[in-house]
């Protein structure tokens, strides 16, 4: 093998190695060392699932992007506390659901404060209804039904909302949902059952 052939072979192997996706432990190690490329790979790999989860819960595209950004910032800052006892994706789902619920709570309290302000004639902002949420992944013929369902999902208790969203929108199995929610599979089954019952009740009430 000539010198030039050897050089080409080495550069090709290095190129191959640099394009190989990092394993999860390599990714975590890279993140702990503050490696920029590891962080970019983490974001590129997981941004869609984090965004989709947040979108399902907060039901607003801008808020979902905000939440997704916060999730990655939190991961970047607290990667040293990640013990590795769960998968990275499970950890990301957990942060995404917590952050989304935090956002919903803060919006709710702001809304309450706004109502009080309007009662005392201080609030200048006009009261308006939040428009129906249209998920970008819903087929055109299902848009109206899906919007009604999302409105009903918004009225579910937090735990049921998380279980339903992760299972229905993110296609996670009950086992995976239980890992994200740090509970058991029967508990998730029960949450899903109650969520469906509640959704049915809400929808029937709306229609009657």
């Amino acid at each position: 093998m000539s010198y030039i052939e050897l050089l080409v072979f080495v550069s090709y192997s290095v190129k191959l190695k640099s394009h190989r996706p990092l394993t999860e432990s390599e990714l975590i190690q890279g993140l702990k060392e503050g490696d920029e490329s590891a962080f970019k790979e983490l974001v590129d790999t997981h941004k869609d699932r984090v965004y989709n989860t947040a979108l399902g819960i907060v039901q607003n595209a801008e808020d979902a992007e905000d939440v997704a950004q916060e999730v990655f910032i939190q991961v970047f800052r607290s990667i040293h506390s990640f013990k590795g006892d769960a998968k990275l994706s499970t950890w990301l789902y957990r942060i995404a659901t917590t952050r989304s619920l935090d956002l919903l709570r803060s919006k709710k309290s702001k809304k309450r404060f706004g109502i009080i302000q309007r009662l005392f004639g201080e609030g200048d902002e006009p009261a308006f209804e939040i428009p129906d949420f249209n998920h970008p992944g819903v087929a055109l013929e299902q848009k109206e039904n899906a919007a009604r369902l999302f409105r009903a999902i918004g009225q579910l208790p937090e735990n049921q909302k998380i279980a339903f969203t992760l299972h229905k929108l993110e296609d996670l199995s009950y086992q995976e949902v239980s890992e994200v929610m740090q509970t058991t599979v029967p508990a998730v089954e029960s949450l899903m059952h109650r969520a469906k019952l509640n959704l049915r009740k809400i929808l029937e009430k709306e229609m009657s």
Partner: protein
Amino acid sequence: MKTDYNKKTEEILNSLDTIHKAAAPDFFYTRLRARMEKESEVPATRPWILRPVYTFAALVIVLLVNAFVLFKENGANQTTTTVDPMQSIAAEYNLNDNSLYDIAQDK
């Protein structure tokens, strides 16, 4: 009628069965990095004791203590000034000692 409701409810409940996952918006990473850089530029938060609300509260406490001491001082001064002239008059007319009677008895 009820079957219609049930049918519609089922339809709505199944409307997410064919849903596709939403993808994160374009340039998500660029915007994320920009936000992280912006947040890192924010100066470190001041210690709680230097927050305006605590500084103002400390100022109010100092002023109140000053006012209290000032009023107390004034009160004390007033009592001394009321006592002092009496004593000086008594001293001036020799009302406090028995020397006058002593002199009269001596005579």
